[in-house]
């Protein structure tokens, strides 16, 4: 009846997952109770769960990403402390099979459920605003994408309480991940969680390629788009190109595991190396899917806070697209040691080194953007400067690893671990925090606390280096990754240093939380009434903070690069805004619950496939199909916002802008 699912799936004998799960369940019940007591269900359902507004969906992606970032960070703290405690005669506090689940969950969660949702969240929130349009190409599909991602995240978290998670690392290499060697449900949790959220991501990619290429306001030609839009496009193109590979590879592994097929088995003509090639043909572009939008965020920040247009805009576009293409030609460097031979290794070593050229162009462009500008040392700017320093060093260790003979020496060592954290934390995570501080006032209408923001930056920056320099060192000494126990006592002090770094990072995370709490408490003082708190240059700053759900009363007419900057300068010069447009009714998509229901049925189906409850899986698929038909049958797709409502919102915006005009005009006259 319930497949492989029995009471023994609940880890009653393991205190750590049991207590974590109970706390987690209590927190969830507490939140649900609070929502019920306050009577927020109706509001949540109408304004958020069924919302197809790209800004709301972006914020929900952000929330999901932050929650999972905390979960992944907790895993990281456990890994670093276990290694520091389990040196020589000491055993630490985590059993091997539990430790293996933790490092697998850490990588999986951080990449798929923390970094991806946060990056996609920014793409969602910012891109349509910067393009001067009212929504993405397929708003309802966007909601489906989000909820599928949430469904995958839910499955990963269920594995904590029901069954187990994979012990195979964040990429389940066969033959270890085949049913012969991993008979439990851990790998199945991995496979179905990633399969479901991967489909959501693929649809996001399709949505954003179409949005950037087909939905731009009048005059917004390609070479007038803000840099972040270009990186959204490049990242989405990569998603469309490589996420099907992920789906295919995971489907093949599932077929091996469930039906005993022979794609990747080590017997009967299966080919484990085929898995390495396929998964990294997705996996390497994946890091650029994450880091390209991060580069976009930095481009916006450097330009805004240097008070200058982005230096070398066109070379930046070229470098982005160069990286987008070369990203798909470097995958083999993840397994130089697996016997491809010198000729193949050399080719991939060269392509890997070449991709650093595109990144180098970008680094110089950012530095020259600051040159001669009036640089303001705000929190986003600190993260960006910290990024340049960190990422250049991470890039250099990367180029070192790109040389096959050098790679043979440190392959699969802590050096590698330090390298990829150096680029992903220094590149992506720093960008996410920069973007959070930069666009927070646009999303929520008030600024974040500057002092706590700076404290968070410095703690994270110092903590990062204290954590990872010892790991580089250990890698050079020969320590391999994923060790549950460390035999060599001389490595102990370096592991202690690394743990001390983690303590600083925990303090940094605490500073972020305090920053949010303090800012929310002081929100009335911190209000951004202007809509343009940073003296910005792109169109999102032309809207009020937060923007109305229809974004723009009238689509802007763009006359050159830096669309909003041009409008602003003209207004400042003439001391008056452009004439009031003739307001018209605006057509907006209606809310839809199809995303929520699809994700519900996807979760049910995924859970039943993991536990081999076939009838329930069939029922889940049927439910999803019925949901789709029901959705297809609806008659009303859009509603009209009356011209008066549009006019009222826009006149308020214009009043705020006029006030700003006086303020800035007076400042200019005084200086």
């Amino acid at each position, binding site marked *: 009846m319930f497949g492989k699912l029995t009471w023994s799936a609940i880890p009653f004998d393991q205190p750590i997952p049991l207590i974590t799960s109970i706390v987690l369940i209590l927190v969830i019940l507490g939140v649900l109770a609070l929502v019920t007591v306050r009577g927020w269900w109706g509001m949540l359902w109408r304004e958020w769960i069924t919302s197809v507004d790209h800004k709301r969906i972006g914020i929900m992606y952000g929330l999901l990403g932050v929650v999972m970032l905390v979960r992944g960070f907790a895993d990281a703290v456990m890994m670093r402390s276990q290694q520091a405690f389990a040196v020589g005669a000491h055993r630490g506090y985590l059993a091997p099979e539990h430790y293996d689940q933790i490092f697998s969950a850490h990588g999986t969660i951080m990449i798929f459920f923390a970094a991806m949702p946060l990056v996609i969240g920014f793409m969602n929130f910012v891109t349509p605003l910067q393009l001067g349009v009212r929504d993405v190409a397929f708003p309802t599909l966007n909601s489906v994408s989000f909820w599928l991602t949430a469904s995958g995240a839910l499955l990963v978290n269920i594995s904590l309480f029901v069954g187990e998670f994979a012990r195979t690392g964040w990429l389940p290499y066969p033959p270890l991940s085949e049913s012969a060697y991993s008979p439990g449900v851990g790998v199945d949790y991995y496979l179905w969680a990633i399969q479901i959220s991967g489909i959501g991501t693929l649809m996001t990619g399709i949505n954003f390629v179409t949005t950037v290429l087909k939905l731009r306001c009048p005059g917004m030609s390609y070479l007038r788009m803000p840099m972040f839009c270009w990186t959204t496009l490049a990242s989405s193109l990569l998603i469309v190109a490589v996420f099907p590979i992920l789906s295919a590879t995971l489907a093949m592994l599932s077929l091996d595991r469930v039906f005993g097929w*022979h794609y990747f088995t080590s017997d009967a003509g299966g080919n484990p190396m085929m898995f390495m090639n396929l998964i990294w043909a997705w996996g390497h572009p994946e890091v650029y899917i994450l880091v390209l939008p991060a580069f976009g965020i930095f481009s916006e920040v450097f330009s805004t806070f240097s008070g200058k247009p982005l230096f070398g805009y066109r070379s930046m576009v070229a470098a982005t697209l160069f990286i987008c293409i070369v990203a798909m030609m470097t995958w083999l460097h993840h397994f130089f040691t697996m016997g491809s031979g010198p000729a193949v290794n050399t080719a991939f070593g060269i392509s890997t080194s070449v991709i650093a050229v595109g990144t180098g162009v970008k680094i110089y462009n950012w530095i020259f953007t600051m040159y001669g500008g009036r640089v303001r040392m705000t929190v986003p700017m600190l993260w960006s400067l910290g990024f340049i320093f960190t990422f250049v060093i991470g890039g250099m260790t990367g180029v070192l690893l790109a040389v096959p003979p050098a790679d043979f020496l440190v392959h699969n060592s802590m050096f590698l671990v330090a390298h990829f954290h150096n680029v992903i934390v220094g590149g992506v995570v720093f960008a996410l925090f920069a973007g959070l501080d930069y666009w927070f006032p646009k999303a929520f209408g008030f600024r974040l606390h500057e002092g706590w923001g700076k404290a968070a930056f410095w703690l994270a920056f110092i903590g990062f280096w204290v954590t990872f320099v010892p790991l580089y060192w250990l890698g050079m000494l020969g320590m391999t990754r994923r060790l549950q126990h460390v035999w060599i006592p001389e490595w102990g002090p370096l592991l202690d240093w690394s743990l001390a770094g983690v303590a600083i990072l925990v303090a940094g995370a605490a500073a972020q939380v305090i920053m949010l709490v303090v800012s929310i408490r002081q929100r009335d003082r911190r209000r951004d009434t202007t809509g343009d708190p940073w003296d910005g240059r792109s169109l999102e700053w032309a809207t009020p903070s937060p923007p109305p759900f229809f974004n723009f009363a009238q689509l802007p007419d763009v006359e050159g690069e830096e669309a909003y900057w041009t409008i602003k300068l003209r207004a400042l010069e003439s001391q008056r805004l452009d004439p009031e447009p003739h307001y018209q009714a605006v057509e907006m998509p209606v809310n839809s619950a199809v995303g929520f229901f699809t994700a519900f049925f996807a979760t049910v189906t995924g859970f039943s496939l993991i536990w081999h409850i076939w009838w329930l899986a069939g029922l889940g698929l049927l439910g999803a199909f019925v949901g789709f038909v029901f959705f297809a049958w609806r008659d009303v797709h859009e509603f009209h916002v009356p011209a008066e409502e549009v006019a009222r919102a826009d006149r308020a915006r214009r009043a705020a802008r006029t006030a700003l005009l006086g303020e800035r005009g007076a400042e200019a006259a005084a200086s």
Partner: protein
Amino acid sequence: MSGDALPAARETLRRRGEDPHRLGHRAHGREAVAGTGRGGSGPASKRIVVGYGFWIFLLSDVILFACFFATFAVQRDATAGGPTMRALVDMPRVAAETGALLLSSYACGLSYAAANARNKLWTQVLLVLTGLLGLAFVAMELQEFVGLAGRGIVPQRSGFLTAFFGLVGLHGLHVTLGGVWLATMVAQVQFKGFRPEIMHRLTCFNLFWHALDIVWIGIFSIVYLMGASA
């Protein structure tokens, strides 16, 4: 004056009315036509956005198939002492399958022409014909698989058979799901008529159905023809 004067100009105007974006009739370059989403003339019309997005989806689907083609190429000779491709190919059956699928695509194209002429009867007749031919294809393929299984030729036997059943089966699954979609389209056309969103969906369905043909041509050539001659 009657409508006989200036026939070419009138015809052009009529066509523009039906195809405001003049798809496929414009020179590339600077000309900005509202609603195409090109050249900074503002957001594209829904018709173009939907079609464009679906093309992007199809490209991703083609990549999905490419992975299964690649595994087939890698595992072709990994027979583990079991049967080779030569033992599997039943050329008359594959020819019949191909014929059914191509005719199905032809019927699908005709149904789209009928839909463009807003002829409900012929649209439905041809859509049903499309579906029946697709069903014939799936039935023949299933029969093939069952027959093979009866001779002990199953995916569990070898890496080669895994890749074979995976690739051909994935295409069969696509045709099956396409058939389910087709059934809902027939119902939508029947009860909702030729509303714009139904027309958009018909466009997408046509693209999907033809794309499956193209994939099948690849399977027919690479799996069956090359396998029979190997």
